[in-house]
C-alpha cells in the first residue's frame, strides 16, 4: 500500500486512489478518419513498462481529480506527480 501525494490534497494512502493506466495517450480528435489499425493502436496498445512509467491516477475517494505520476514499476517508487495537461518532468 503506497502513499500518493495528490497535487490538490497532499499525501494520502493508495486505497483512496484509482489507477488509470498509461498517461499521455490522447483520444484522437477525429476518430472516423482513422483506419482500424490506427484506432486499435489508441484503443488497445499499451507499453506496460518495467521501470519508469508515466501513468494516470485519480483521487477517487477524495477530490476526484485526475493527475499524472511518474512511477518506477519495479519498486513502486513515485518519482514525481504532475497535473493533467502539464508536461512530464524529466527524471
Amino acid at each position: 500500500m503506497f502513499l500518493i501525494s495528490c497535487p490538490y490534497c497532499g499525501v494520502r494512502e493508495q486505497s483512496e486512489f484509482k489507477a488509470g493506466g498509461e498517461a499521455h495517450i490522447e483520444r484522437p480528435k477525429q476518430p472516423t478518419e482513422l483506419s482500424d489499425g490506427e484506432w486499435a493502436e489508441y484503443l488497445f496498445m499499451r507499453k506496460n513498462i518495467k521501470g519508469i512509467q508515466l501513468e494516470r491516477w485519480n483521487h477517487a475517494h477524495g477530490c476526484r481529480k485526475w493527475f499524472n505520476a511518474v512511477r518506477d514499476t519495479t519498486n513502486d517508487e513515485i518519482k514525481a506527480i504532475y497535473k493533467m495537461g502539464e508536461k512530464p518532468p524529466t527524471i
Partner: protein
Amino acid sequence: MSKNLRVQTSKFIDETTNISFKFNGKTYYGFKGDTLASALLSNDVHLVGRSFKYHRPRGIMTAGSEEPNAIVQTNNNTALTEPNVRATEIEIYEGLEASSQNCWPSVKFDIGGINNFLSPLLPAGFYYKTFMWPANFWEKYEYVIRHSAGLGKSPKEPDPDIYDHRYIHCDVLVIGAGITGIMAAKTAAKNNLKTLLLDEKTELGGTTIYQDSDHIKINNQSSSAWLENEITELKKLNNLEIKTRTSVAAYHGYNYLLARENLTDHLSNNDKQNKIRQRLLKIRAKKVIVATGSLERPMVFNNNDRPGIMLSSAVKKYADYYGVATGQKNIFFTNNDTAYESAISINNKGIKVEAIVDIRENPNSEFTKEAENLGIKIYRNHTVVDTHGYKKLNNISIMELSKDGQSFANSNIITLDCDCLGMAGGWTPAVHLFTQSGGKLKFRDEDQVFIPNKYPSDQVSVGSCNGDFELDEIINNTSKSLKEFLNINKTDFDNLDVQCPKDKEIRNIWLLPSNKVLGKTKPFVDYQNDATAKDIKLALREGFKSIEHVKRYTTTGMGTDQGKLGNMHALGIIADTAGIKVGELGTTTFRPPYTPLTFGTMVGRNVGEYFDAFRRTPMNDWHIENKAEFENVGQWKRAWYYPQNNETMHDAVQRESKAARDSAGILDASTLGKIDIQGTDASEFLNRVYTNAWSKLAIGKCRYGLMLNEDGMVYDDGVTTRLEENHYIMTTTTGGAANVLGKLEDYLQTEWPELDVYLSSVTDHYATASVCGPNSKKILNKIIPDLDLSDENFPHMSFKNAKIDNIKCRVMRISFTGEHSYEINVQANFGKSLWEKCMDAGQEFKITPYGTETMHLLRAEKGFIIVGQDTDGTMTPIDLQMDWIVSKKKYDFIGKRSLYRSDTMKEDRKQLVGLITDNPSEVLEEGAQIVANTNPTPVEMLGHVTSSYYSPNLNKSIALAVVRGGKNMMGRKLIIAMENKNINVTIVDPVFFDKENVRLNA
C-alpha cells in the same frame, strides 16, 4: 509422575505460580513464564508430534517462532480450537489444552508411521506424480492421502473472540528488541524521534538477556547485566512505545508494515473473557530499523530429526532462560564456537555434557580450551553419521572426516550415548522482512550467509540480521549504522569496552557425508515437510533447475514454518550438486506473513454485518415492516419481493407482476444512480457520452440513453432529463453509478477540459417512488391534484416540478415496465412519507408494492435490457438490436469509431433475441447454453439464455438470449441442452408484450 528436569531458578520464570495444563489429555505442571515447550521439557516430554509425510516421531527443536516440529492444536472447543500453534511460542496458562497434530490414533502409536517404511514409494514430487499418472491412481490414493495429509483441524464454528485493528504512525520503527534493537530504540527515542519498538517474545533483550558467559562482557559487566540496565533506562524514555508478544508479519513498500499483537493468548481462560485477543497493527514508519537477529542452523546428516535432537542455542535457552535441562547426557555437534558457549553454560548448571563433536579440523579458541578444562571430550574433525532411538534419542555414531570433508579419514565408527544432541550449524540472518520490503541480498562467501545489500526504502538492518554475529562487532557496527541512519553525531554506545573472545572460524558442509549411500539415509532439510537432501538431489536429476521449482517440487520451505531452518541447506545442496556458488543461485522469495496470522486478526472488527458497508433507501423501514425479502445490488439492500401469507418467491412475483399491469404497482427506485449535470456545455457533453443526439432535447423532456466504452461495448444506460437550459439529471444503473461518474469525470478532466460542465453525485439526496399501471394516473392525481396529467400537458418522456404538501418534488413520466407510469423524486428525508402517501392514495386501486424481481420480469416482457444481465461487456448496441439509438448524424461519441471496426461489424456476432419454449410452462435456466443440434461432438455453442421468466401477463415462459447471428434467425428452432433433457425453443422478437406501446399512453 514424570521426572522434573528443572535445574535452577530463573528470574524469567515465576516458580511461585504453578500452572496446570493438559497435553494429549494428560495433566502436567509448569510455571508462570513457561512456554508449552519449556514446560513439557521440564516434564521430560520430548515427543510432541509426528512429521507430515513419514509420520516420524518429532520433538521440540527450537525455542522460538522458527519451530518446525513442535506444532500443536490448542483448545478442544469446536469454535476456539486452533491448529499449527508453535509449542515454543505459546505461554502456558491455567486451563491450556494442547494436543499433537498429524498423528492418529496417538502420538506414541501412529498408524501413519508406516509411511516411514514406505518412504521409497514417497519420493519428491509424489503428489504431483500421483495427479499425473495413471489417471485412476489418484482416485485410489485420494482417501488415504486426504486422511493422512493436512496439519491440524480447523475450527468448525465462527470464532467468538474479539480482534482489533490499530493504525500507528511513527518516526522510527524498531523490529526486534534484542541488544541491537534496544540500542536502536534508545538512540532514536533520545533523539526526539517518536519510536515504536516491537518484539515477538515476552521479554525484551533477545538472547543477551540470559547470557551468562564469563568471557562475554560489556564495560566489565556481564553482557546481561549491562543490557538489563539499558532496558531500565529505555523504559523511562517518553516518546517510545514498546510492544512485546508482537510479531511483524509483513513489510510492504513505503515502510508500511503489519504486525500482530498478542493480547490474551497467555492468559487463563477466565482472564481472557471479553478482552481483545489479538490486534493487527498497521504501521506507517518514516524510518525502519530491522533488528530481527538470526536463526541457528541445524546440521544435515542421517536421522537428524529424532526427539532429543535440537538446536544448540535452544538447549542453552531452555537451561539459561527457563532453567530446564533438555537432556541428562548432552552432546553438541558443531561447525563453529557457538556450541561451546552453550556447552559451558549448561555444564556450569550441573547438566552433564558428554562431548562436543566438531567438524572443524582444529578448533582452538578460549571457549574450546575452557570446555576441555571442564572435562568435556572434544571430537575434532568428526561428524555424526547416524543417530538411534525411535521415540527419544539413545545414541549417536560419529566418524572422522577426510581432509575435504566429503568422506571419512578411516572406517572407525564411535558410538556415544546421549539423550540430547545440540546442533550448531552456524547462523542465518533473519532477512525475511528485509526481502519482503523489496530489499536485495548479497551472499558473503566467507561464512556462507545472505545479508542485506540494497535498501528499497528508508530502513537499515543492524546486528546479526545484517551478518554481525559476535558481540563486539554487533555493538560497534550498530552504533556506527545508527549514527549514519539517524544522522546524529553520537550514541551512548560509541566507547563501550566489549569482550568477546569467540573464534569466528566456521567450516560449512551443507550435506555431511554418510557411511551409507544417500538412498538409504534420511538427512532432513525441511523437517516439517519431510524433505530430505535425497529429495532435493532427485529433483535436480529430474531436470528442475530453478530454486523456486525445486522448492515446490520437493515442498522444501513450504510448511507453516516456511523452512526457516533448512532453506539455506537446500540452497547449499543444490549449489553443491549443480557445481555453482550459492550466491549465483539466489534465494526463494520470502512472502508475508513471517509467522502465521489468524484470520481473526486480518479481518478485525469487519465481521458479520460489519463485513462490508451497506446502503439502505429511505423507504427501507417500510419494506421491513411489510416483510420484504431483500437482495444485494452492489452495496444496496433492495426490496426483492414482498411475500404474503407464506407465498413462495415465484407466487409473490407472479402476483406482483400481474397487479402492476392490471391496476397499479409501486417500486422503490431510490437506488438508481443520479448525477446532476450543470454547465453551458452540458448538452454537448451528453452528445459526446451517449450514442444518441441530445442537443435538441427540449427543457422538461426526458430521453433514454445508452453509454458505450471506447471499444463500442455497452457500458451503462438510463434516462436523463433536461431540467433547465444548462441543467440535466442523469440516472444510471444501480450498480454502475460510481463507475459512470468516474468515467464521465475522466473525460471531462482529461480529454475535454474545455467543456464547461460540472458533475455531482446526488444518488443519496433523492428518494424515488415509481408508480405504474393503468391506475397510476388516478393515484398521482390524488397525491398532486394541482398537476395537469393530461397527455397534452404531461406526455410520456417528460418532466414536471411539483409539490406534495409543500414538499418539492420532481415527477418524470417515464416507464421501465411498459405501463403508464410516474417516477416521483423527493428529498431523501421525505422518502418514506412519499411512499406511504402513494400507498394510501393507491389503496382503492389495490396498489401493489413490487420488488426488483418483478421489475425484471416486467421489463423482460417488454424486451428491455438490463446492463450487466443481458450484456456482459462484449455487446454493442447493434448486437442488442438497438440500432435505433445510435445516431448516424453525430460526428463522434464515446465508442462510435469502434462500431465500424471489422470485428464489431461481423454478421455472426452474438445478438440479443427473444426465445419462447415449445412447452409454454417450461421456464429456462438463465445461463443455459443454446445449440442447433446435439449430435456431433464437440457441439457448437451458439449462445446462452440471459433472462428467463414465466410471464403471468402472457401466460407462458419467455426468455432473452444472445445467439450467434440471432438477428437473422427469427423463427428458427434451437435446443437448450440441459443435463438431463433437451428443451426445444424458437427464436422470436425480444419484445413479447404490447409491441405497439399502447399501454404507455393508456
